[in-house]
């Protein structure tokens, strides 16, 4: 893949200049401040045009891009990209295949429509005209941008989600993907060019999108965050980048709105009466998909029931992991094996029960601990065994009653073993019906964002907010119009 050696900007609106840099064997051509300034000069006009186009036309363009993607994917045109992304993101090709098939879902018009409807109280026409919400009182949702998105590098989908919503809501959008997913993101966005042959709207949407990589010490990035006339900045990630970005944004005289989607994780909750093969299979699948690197991935399980039942359940999860894990082979180096094997021993010596596989391509580990987490004890001697490096590894904490459950969700972010995680995003439940409501209600007091069935913790419904926020609303300003005085 010759072109992969060079991260070129995607910018169709303007002739541009770049600063050439090198990083981990790649050439990075990042957009210069001068060029960024030029494209931003055109952004207001573009936003104005785009936000007058009926929303359904914009949705059609995205749908078309999604279809083009699927056609090419089916013809095998992205096979090279698949292998490249597998290498750059560290995931296996099987998972990358799944990931590429998700692109069309992100671009699907019905999915986006649903998300917009729940973000704008079913008034999505307000995205191109005033909608009367009460007698003589109207709303109009206008772009709050230009929007800058600094996206995550976990895989291909996370940068596409906010980008699609930002463009759909009429924003001029500058996207900085990660090095690891850069080529995938650009490949998707290139399809706007193809779609624009037959559609002016597609051309307009393509012009409203600029993609460039910027190194963290880049003057061009400092310009965008700290000086440029930006309306919204959406940052996905944790420290130290989060603080770095926040400081720069706070200095920007244009006072852009800043939305940070910080690092989060998932917790699975299993009642012993639901600890069957099916639940075990579901937990195993969610552990294997994306190697627990999603904000929704279960990295802790809480088992409500007896010690013996918990161990029986762990055995079932082990059986499922043996099977599912083999379908998504992973690689582990000498250093990680040493750490993993040592951690397993320490936990076993400290009283936890350890179930594990030593299969080179599927090294899973289940730790069953009584009442509280034992994981914190291993992080001091093995600081590298942090949440970012734990793969196919979960601690099942066994508790007797539901009361302890909330404490275990609450304490997770301050547990050293979860250092770097802001809080629990997703709780995946496998509970009897009579417990579902009570547990869900109580969990709302512990900062969680999603409460879902255990089987599809990683799957997002089209109408879901993102970490407690409706992104589409965040990317817009609501203009209020009142035609008649309401009087004093």
């Amino acid at each position, binding site marked *: 893949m010759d072109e992969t050696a060079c991260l070129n900007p995607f910018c169709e609106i303007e002739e541009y200049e770049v600063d050439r840099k090198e*990083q*981990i064997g790649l050439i990075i051509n990042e957009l210069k401040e001068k060029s960024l300034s030029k494209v931003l000069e055109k952004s207001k006009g573009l936003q104005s045009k785009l936000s007058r186009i009926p929303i359904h036309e914009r949705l059609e363009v995205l749908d078309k891009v999604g279809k083009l993607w699927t056609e090419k994917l089916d013809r095998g045109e992205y096979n090279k990209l698949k292998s490249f992304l597998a290498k750059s993101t560290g995931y296996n090709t099987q998972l990358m295949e799944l990931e590429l098939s998700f692109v069309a879902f992100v671009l699907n018009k019905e999915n986006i429509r649903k998300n917009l409807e729940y973000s704008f109280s079913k008034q999505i026409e307000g995205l191109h005209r005033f909608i009367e919400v009460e007698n003589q009182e109207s709303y109009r949702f206008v772009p709050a941008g230009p929007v800058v998105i*600094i*996206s*995550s*590098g*976990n*895989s291909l989908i*996370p940068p596409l989600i906010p980008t699609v919503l930002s463009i759909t809501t009429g924003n001029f959008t500058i996207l*900085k993907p*990660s*090095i*690891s*997913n850069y080529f995938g993101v650009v490949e998707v966005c290139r399809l706007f060019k193809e779609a624009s042959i037959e559609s002016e709207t597609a051309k307009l949407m393509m012009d409203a999108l600029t993609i460039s990589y910027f*190194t*963290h010490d880049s003057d061009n990035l400092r310009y965008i965050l700290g000086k440029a006339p930006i309306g919204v900045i959406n*940052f*996905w*990630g*944790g420290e*130290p*980048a989060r603080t*770095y*970005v926040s400081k720069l944004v706070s200095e920007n005289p244009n006072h852009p709105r800043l939305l940070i*989607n*910080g*690092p*989060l*994780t998932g917790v699975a909750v299993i009642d012993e009466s639901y600890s069957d093969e099916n639940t075990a299979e579901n937990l195993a699948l969610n552990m294997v998909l*994306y190697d627990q*690197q*999603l*904000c929704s991935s279960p990295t802790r399980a809480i088992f409500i029931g007896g010690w013996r039942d918990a161990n029986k359940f762990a055995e079932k999860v082990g059986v499922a992991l043996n099977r599912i894990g083999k379908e998504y082979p992973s690689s582990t*180096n*000498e*250093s*990680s*094996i*040493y750490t993993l*094997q*040592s951690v397993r*021993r*320490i936990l*076993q*010596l400290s*009283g936890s029960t350890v179930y594990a596989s*030593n299969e*080179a391509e599927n090294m899973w580990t289940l730790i069953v601990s009584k009442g509280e987490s034992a994981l914190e004890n291993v992080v*001091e*001697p*093995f600081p*590298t065994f*942090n*949440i*970012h*490096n734990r793969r196919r590894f979960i601690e099942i904490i066994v508790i007797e009653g539901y009361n302890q459950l909330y404490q275990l969700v609450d304490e997770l972010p301050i547990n050293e073993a979860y250092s*770097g*995680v*802001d809080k629990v995003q997703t709780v995946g439940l496998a509970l009897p019906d009579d417990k579902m409501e009570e547990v869900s209600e109580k969990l709302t007091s512990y900062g969680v964002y999603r409460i879902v069935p255990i089987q599809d913790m990683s799957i997002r419904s089209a109408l879901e907010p993102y*970490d407690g926020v409706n992104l589409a609303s965040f990317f817009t300003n609501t203009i209020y119009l009142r035609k008649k005085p309401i009087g004093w």
Partner: protein
Amino acid sequence: MNSSEIFDLASKSRLAHDPYVEKVWGLVNDKGLFNKSPHYLRELRKGLLRDALKYFAVHSEYYAQLFERLSINPKSAEPSDLAKLALPSDILRGDGHKQFVIKDADQNGEYFMSSGTTNKNPVKIYRSSIDLAIMIKANTDLFEYVYGDYLEPAKGVALFMAASELRYRLNFVAFVHLALESKSIQLLYGMDLKDESRDGKPWQKLEPNKDNILKFLKSKEEPKLFFTAPAGIYLMSKQFETMSITKKIIYKIASGAPPVALGRGGVIVTGGGTKGFTDLPPYDKIVELSRKHFRSKDRSGVDIPVPFMDVLGMTETLTALIDKFGVMDKVPHPLSEVFILNPKTYELMEEEGKEGVVGIFNPFVTSWLEIFYPGDIISFHRSENFYGSEFVYVRRLKLEEGWNLQRACGGTLEELMGRK
């Protein structure tokens, strides 16, 4: 404590009359162990493993519960159980060792720490007086076996390129100091510890003690035993190699060297790892270079290439593994069980020549169950010696810190996250 005080305290210890401790002490004092067959010693060690597990189960609730959890019955334990019991040395960093020391252990012992070359938080090990007494006996016997001769008391002189203060900190220095002291062999420290308040590792604050080095070089005592890190002998030899003729003459007049005459029975003993020197040549090249500038004789006074011994002694092992260059690869004390773990599964591996993770069980340690793996790669080959095998040190396990991937969901500004 000096060696006499150690022996004195050990004899008065509460544990001194425990049947297991008495058995171990008796065995450690039996020099005939080095003449036994590998089979005899294997069986002896198997018996000691079972006795050790019984001893620790009796003296500590923690160990009793541990054996139960791991389904190990002390009465029928097998060497294969060592793979289950071995601790990673990283758990012994900081105060990690405390949890494994039995409550009955004497409180009047000493602590040793690793140099901190591989990790900021050093391994810290407590040694009771009994363990220290065993350390002196066992290491001296092993040293003499590899050296190939008996070190006559009060004869000869040793130079250790370390500072005397490190005797109470670094295991290797204590090994040498106490062994020589118990033999009344004069030990000179070739380095001084400067400005302890400065940050950094102790061995980075060392400066040569020229008086002691000169004293050693000029001494007519025999044998001359020169203890140093590989980097020390390499740098010294390199210095001789690159010296101008004028400087060489001046140095020769002042010290009698180069070449350095180690006399009858003279030997160079290396140990302590690379100490962070990354550009050291391979060990055989260091030996080759050093032999140009150091001379030695055998017992009858015939010139021989200067013998090199290398000590592999981690902080957490009471006794070392020692080799003699060109004569034998590394051998442990006859009572030490050295085992190799498969680097993928961490199960016992017994294939000759195959590289694996080294584990050590020292059944003669009485204050904690000393079964550990320090994170080094080693291989073994069969041998005619008492142990039936010799070990070849391959390398330290390379521990990568790993990409600190940020979630939510991934790594934004990834180069800012770096590799910590």
